[in-house]
């Protein structure tokens, strides 16, 4: 009886302690809430300072006889759930050891995944239950599964082809170039492509190439086997690495040279170095929290001709390359070094090089271009970089851009969404 009683006291005390620990933790913070989550790249919700202030004031007004005002004050932020949602979100975001607990939970789920796939011979397993990300069987590389090729994709491609036709027709003096980065999700060399009935397997690109206008100059950083992907892309991030970006620079240079006779010589891009002290865990690792070993973060050691950069109209330095090279960079696990080193999204970036060129380039791209856009820009007087991921392509007109900025060449460079798949990249002629 005594043993049982003691056992119950111990159990109740221990469980109660587990339940009250967060309260003790929040009390100990004294209102100094965590405001940012590096790993998620977002602001955290914090507890409101005086959560029930409106209710207190509302009650006072009711007592004073101001019924309408009192009722409104009392109910407005609780009847639509705003206050409740804020408190609920704050509890979740400010929960003690939240990321540690998340990693622990994902490890439990990884145990489930491992046991589930132990009876199959798949080349890759899900890296987590909450994302599409996969990990190779040897757990050395994260990637995403193939995407489907279907009628809706064909419609999008047809739309883009029509757009390219109209762009050329309406701007006959402009050279249009497309440089595609073939990514694993559209490649037949995706390790799990055979397991997906409608996998793209390179069909969308083939479909585009079949019908694209002949006048459109096109080149492609292709994947001809899985090793190509391993060489040109990060193992934990969706971006290409410096090797892929430099290979692309060479190919783009050759493509642009066709109509640009006096283009300056290609830059010397042989000196690739590793950024010391950076343990890079990219977007796939961040999202899946898969316990994969970090990879080196390599960069091109080059001295570019002098240039100025204008970010959304202001002259500024783009990216934090110089700080990183002097060893001044964040050390948090999962920090987004790609964005930190090369720069974040901007509506318009203008490179103005101090050279003798009289040509200007419009580069329509995505985050991939951050790695090599300044190399391409070095061959032009001015290069205007537009990233359409967070903007409506229809707000831009090539005709207007050409006349405003005296554009000579237009280059679409990026993954298939940028080059031929997404209607969001169809700029008005």
């Amino acid at each position: 009886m005594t043993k049982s009683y003691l056992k119950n006291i111990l159990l109740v005390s221990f469980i109660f302690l587990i339940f009250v620990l967060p309260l003790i933790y929040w009390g100990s913070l004294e209102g100094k809430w965590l405001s940012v989550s590096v790993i998620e790249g977002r602001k955290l919700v914090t507890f409101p300072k005086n959560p029930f202030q409106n209710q207190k004031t509302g009650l006072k007004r009711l007592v004073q006889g101001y019924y309408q005002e009192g009722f409104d004050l009392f109910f407005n932020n609780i009847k639509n759930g705003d206050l409740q949602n804020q408190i609920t979100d704050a509890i979740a975001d400010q929960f003690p050891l939240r990321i540690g607990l998340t990693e622990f939970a994902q490890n439990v789920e990884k145990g489930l995944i491992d046991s589930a796939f132990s009876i199959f011979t798949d080349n890759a397993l899900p890296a987590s239950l909450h994302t599409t990300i996969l990990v190779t069987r040897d757990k050395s590389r994260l990637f995403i599964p193939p995407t489907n090729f279907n009628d809706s994709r064909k419609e999008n491609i047809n739309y883009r082809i029509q757009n390219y036709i109209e762009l050329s027709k309406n701007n006959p003096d402009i050279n249009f170039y497309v440089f595609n980065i073939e990514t694993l999700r559209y490649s037949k060399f995706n390790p799990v492509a055979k397991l997906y009935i409608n996998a793209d397997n390179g069909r969308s690109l083939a479909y585009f190439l079949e019908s694209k206008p002949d006048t459109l100059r096109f080149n492609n950083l292709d994947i001809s086997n899985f090793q190509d992907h391993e060489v040109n892309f990060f193992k934990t991030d969706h971006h290409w690495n410096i090797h892929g970006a430099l290979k692309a620079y060479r190919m783009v240079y050759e493509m642009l040279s066709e109509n640009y006779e006096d283009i300056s010589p290609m830059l010397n891009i042989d000196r690739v170095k590793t950024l010391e002290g950076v343990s890079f865990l990219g977007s796939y690792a961040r999202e899946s929290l898969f316990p994969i070993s970090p990879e080196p973060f390599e960069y091109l050691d080059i001295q570019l001709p002098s240039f100025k950069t204008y970010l959304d109209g202001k002259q500024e330095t783009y990216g934090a390359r110089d700080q990183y090279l002097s060893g001044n960079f964040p050390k948090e696990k999962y920090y987004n070094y790609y964005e930190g080193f090369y720069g974040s999204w901007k509506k318009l970036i203008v490179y103005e090089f101090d050279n003798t060129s009289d040509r200007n380039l419009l580069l329509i791209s995505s985050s991939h271009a951050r790695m090599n856009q300044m190399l391409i820009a070095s061959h032009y007087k001015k290069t205007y970089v537009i990233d359409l991921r967070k903007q409506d392509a229809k707000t831009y007109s090539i005709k207007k851009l050409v006349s405003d900025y005296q554009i000579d060449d237009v280059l679409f460079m990026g993954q298939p969404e940028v080059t031929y798949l997404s209607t969001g990249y169809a700029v008005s002629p």
Partner: protein
Amino acid sequence: MHFTSQLFLFIFLPITIFLYCILPSKSWRSFFLLISSIIFYAWGEPLFVFLLCFLVILNWFLGIIIDRSIQKDNKKIAEQIKIIAVILNLLPLLILKLLTNRSLINISDYLTVGDLSSFTYPMGLSFFAFTSISYLIDVYRKEIRAENNLFDLSGFLLMFPKISQGPITKYKSVVSGIKKPVVNIDTIANGLRRFIAGLAKKVMVADYLGVVSSKVFSLDPNSLNPRIAWYGLIAFTLQIFLDFSAYTDMAIGLGCILGFDLPENFNFPYISKSITEFWRRWHMTLSNWFRSYLFIPLEISRRKAKRFRLETNIIFVFLATGLWHGIGQNFILWGLYYGVIIALEANFLGMWLKKINPIFQHAITLLLITFGWVFFRIEKIRSWAPFFRSLFGLNNDNIHTLRSLRILAYWPILIIGAILCLPIINIIPTKIQNNLWIRVLTDCLLIILLLVSIAIISSGNFRAFLYAEF
């Protein structure tokens, strides 16, 4: 507020238990339980809490009038008030179910009440209404006396452990707990054990099964191959039981912590050998409610009917059961499906079932139950036939695989879920169950399950930033 939310687990629960346990008198505890229940409900339903409070006062008042009329032998008035009371409790239920059922009728086309698209059915109203009706009819039947203490009755009707999903509780079964709640270290420990078992069942099994079933049932049923259709259907069959029974475990555990004995709601329903038995084991408090307050009165009032009385009564009761779950056509037909099967079992089907091998009895019953969940889960009736065609491999347009849907990894959870549906605990001899070391080990296991459940709950709002292919 949900039992698995961090708000409930780490703010509401510890504060409520702590204050409830240290309050000196029964009346203080009763009052505190009422306040905490109102806060619990108002957190998620800040407007409907007023409707519930109004109904509580109304039921308290009507209960007293019925009781006084009965005591004064004025049965006719008591009966009329009982009928009015039942209607008054069912009316908000019906109106709100209609208003929130957009597949049936677009009510906002007919009413000038503005946009109702964000309007949702208030949590637990069906359970509240049935509990209230049960109380009033029991008063009318002289099974209990009307409760004069408004706090006690309010505490019972709004009690937070059972307000959102039951169990539908008869007042007489908890009145002693309300009047004299027994709270000591043993009841708290046992309540916590049951609560944690339910929490783990919900978070570690049912919710994962829910991922599988949601994915499968969100697809066009024409596009499924038999493997995916069965996988999804089995996942849903397990999920609906484990989710609901987990909730009941948590409610009973909380009741125990607060000193109340809430009734059991499930008794391993999937081991039934007939559909009739299934409904004796599934959502027992609802079945009991319908038996006590609808089926038996129907049998009595129609006792003179000679042909198909039992069968039509059964079908009527199950139609009402379907309606209780929702006013959509699928729920009505789901109720009808069970009504017809049980009516048939009351005749030749039952006799035939008893004659065949018990293994086949289990298999046929389980198959019928599983098919029944198709009607329950798929709202659009026109999607039923394609789904059944998928189950039997008669669809050709198969574009998905278990891998492309990312549900293959969940098969061990399906196995665990299936094991949890079996009464394995009953196989373990009582002597072993009572062994001190076994119990210590069980408690350690429960603490581990609690920690894992907390980790899974905490990971729920992790949103890593990713631009897919960008």
